């Protein structure tokens, strides 16, 4: 086993995870830059497939991206080093914040800041979903628009469990994929 490579994997994900703001997609791009363009440990085409796998799996994209890279380079030990590197920085930062939060929550200055930021963070989230909804509408795919509206009504007005909605849509997607595959096979015949 190559301890040098493992160490490199660990410190790369540790570094990226400490300083990358802007979510999982940014981290995946930086992982590619590090391991494909700089170190040449993974080739470009293979990295595209790995990224597709990371983005298709549930969970945080940054963690998934670290897993595929670690796995590709060093197998299971690679996964362990990559994941540890990816989660240690947020673990330390949020543990510190958690300790301060309890102590500072009732400080009037912090309270005012957090209250104002609640309006800001709502705007950030609503702005993101507004853009995403616009993109779905642009596709002009009726089934997607129905899923969007029905899921919202079920989740917001009727408090239907998110996991339940996701499971139903997964079943729907699988049935759709199955029918499509069958049609394609018939065409080939």
């Amino acid at each position, binding site marked *: 086993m190559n301890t040098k490579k493992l160490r490199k994997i660990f410190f790369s994900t540790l570094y990226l995870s400490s*300083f990358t703001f802007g979510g999982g997609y940014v981290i995946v791009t930086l992982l590619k830059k590090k391991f494909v363009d700089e170190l040449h440990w993974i080739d470009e085409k293979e990295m595209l497939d790995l990224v597709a796998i990371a983005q298709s799996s549930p969970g*945080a994209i940054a963690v998934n991206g670290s897993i595929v890279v670690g796995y590709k380079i060093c197998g299971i030990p690679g996964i362990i080093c990559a994941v540890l590197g990816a989660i240690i920085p947020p673990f330390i*930062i949020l543990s510190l914040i*958690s300790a301060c939060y309890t102590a500072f929550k009732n400080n009037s200055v912090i309270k005012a800041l957090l209250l*104002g930021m609640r309006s800001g963070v709502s*705007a950030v989230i609503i702005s993101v979903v507004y853009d995403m909804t616009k993109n779905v509408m642009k596709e002009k795919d009726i089934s997607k628009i129905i899923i969007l509206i029905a899921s919202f009504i079920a989740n917001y007005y009727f408090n239907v469990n998110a996991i339940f909605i996701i499971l139903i849509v997964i079943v729907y997607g699988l049935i759709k994929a199955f029918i499509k595959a069958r049609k394609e096979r018939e065409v080939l015949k």
Partner: protein
Amino acid sequence: MIYLQLFLAFLQIGAFSFGGGYAAMPLIQNQVIDKYGWLSTSDFSDLVTISQMTPGPIAVNSATFVGNQVAGILGAIVATIGVILPSCIFVTLLAWLYVKYKNLKPLQEVLSALAPAVIAMITTAGLTILVPTVVPSGFANIATDVNIRAFVLFLVAFFVLQKYKTDPILVMVGCGVAELIVQFATSSL
């Protein structure tokens, strides 16, 4: 048994957040607020705000934060392991399937059906933060008890984000500082 509850709750969050980043929010809300009551809605809003301003995925940040708040550092470790475990399993499984069949088509069909449902549920999570900020005593009292200042802040932030594509962190800090200044000026601080 609190550690087991934390582990299982975050295992579900990890297993069902498809699409990365914000996709974890409705699941965190479902488990952490609705099911177990580990955080209040305002704590959850603060957690999302903090997650936006620090590196690291929302899911991992929440696991560390909630674990620490509920059961100390051991709780944080258990919750964090819970949230990344599904990633490790799914990613490895998908990588194996991909090598075997070289075909991610059925999976892509499922993901494309899931996307609109996930958007809908992120909207719900966004409204869970926005509504109590703007109408502190509940949506039923929207006619009599509206926090106009919070609503104006939200509208301005939304407009700035959409029109100028300003960095979300900057917008949130701006909102916090604005609230602080107003409270200071009206000497309610």
